[in-house]
């Protein structure tokens, strides 16, 4: 957990100095673990991005239960293609579920630029060997 916090701090500190692009997102994910909602902040430079995210079930809480499996982790974004206002990105995530369990989540996202810095993303991921779908709304707060 400390490692994630340290990396997040470095990412955010660096982004505030360089200010290439900083994006905040809210998202929902439907997966084997039920519906989860979450937040992320991501720094992007050229075709790469890196950020931190938090997601959980019914409540935004670190409390673990049968219907709340909080996930804190890092996300890496790699732009694969751009066409018009759309981008295809590889957005794998790694972090801890229920505070103790290390997981890796492969994910692919299609991002639509709706208006200026406002973007809508649709993603497919694999969680617990089952497909998961993500819907995210992002806003570019720094450029």
């Amino acid at each position, binding site marked *: 957990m400390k490692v994630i916090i340290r990396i997040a701090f470095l990412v955010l500190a660096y982004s505030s100095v360089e200010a290439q692009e900083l994006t905040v997102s809210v998202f929902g994910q439907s997966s084997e673990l039920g519906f989860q909602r979450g937040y992320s902040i991501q720094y992007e430079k050229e075709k790469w991005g890196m950020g931190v995210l938090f997601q959980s079930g019914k409540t935004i809480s670190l409390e673990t239960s049968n219907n709340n499996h909080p996930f804190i982790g890092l996300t890496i974004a790699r732009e694969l293609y751009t066409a018009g206002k759309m981008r295809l990105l590889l957005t794998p995530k790694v972090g801890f579920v229920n505070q*103790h369990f290390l997981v890796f989540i492969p994910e692919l996202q299609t991002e639509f630029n709706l208006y200026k810095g406002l973007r809508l993303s649709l993603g497919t991921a694999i969680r617990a060997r089952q497909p998961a779908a993500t819907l995210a709304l992002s806003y570019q707060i720094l450029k």
Partner: protein
Amino acid sequence: MKKAPLTKRRKYIYYALSTYGWAMLLFVLTLSCEQPIDDPYETFVIPEGKHNATLTTQSLQSDQINFSAIFDESAIYESKTAENQHDINKLVGFSDCNAHHHQSSARFGWRWLNDQIEILAYVYGDGERQTEYIGAVNPNDTASYHLKITEKAYVFRLNDFDEVAVSRAKNCDRGLYYMLFPYFGGDEKAPHDISIKILFRS
């Protein structure tokens, strides 16, 4: 300023991305309306002459595993060597924190013995194996399995049988715990195709 026209290649990418995007949107929208499928069980088949069912990988995501399992008549077998009938096959479990499963793990084990399917706790702690009888089931019975990690023990429960706790050699707290799926053996490989239906619950 006038936008530059899309090249042919970029048009193809654009159309592909649009199609994928709309398909994803439909997928997300229809996910919540999906009707439950008739048989939600996942079938693991250990082919004749093999130890493993289809190889699959998954990391454990909570401190417990809950599932239902149904063995059918394929769980009835006779070992080539009589003493191997006592060998324990594996059902489902996990390796403990950042450890190989022969070092530190907990699994439900099973074997066909005394005309029933015996279910056992099968645990490695610091490389030492411990087994303990939990209960028995019959072919085609649906049985409920529960395995929980506590700080000092792995707690096994099968249906209404008494809980069995096996001590845990704790090596770490936070890290990778990987799940373990059906395996035949013991020394011998599956004498015929063995089919086990499992329904995991979150």
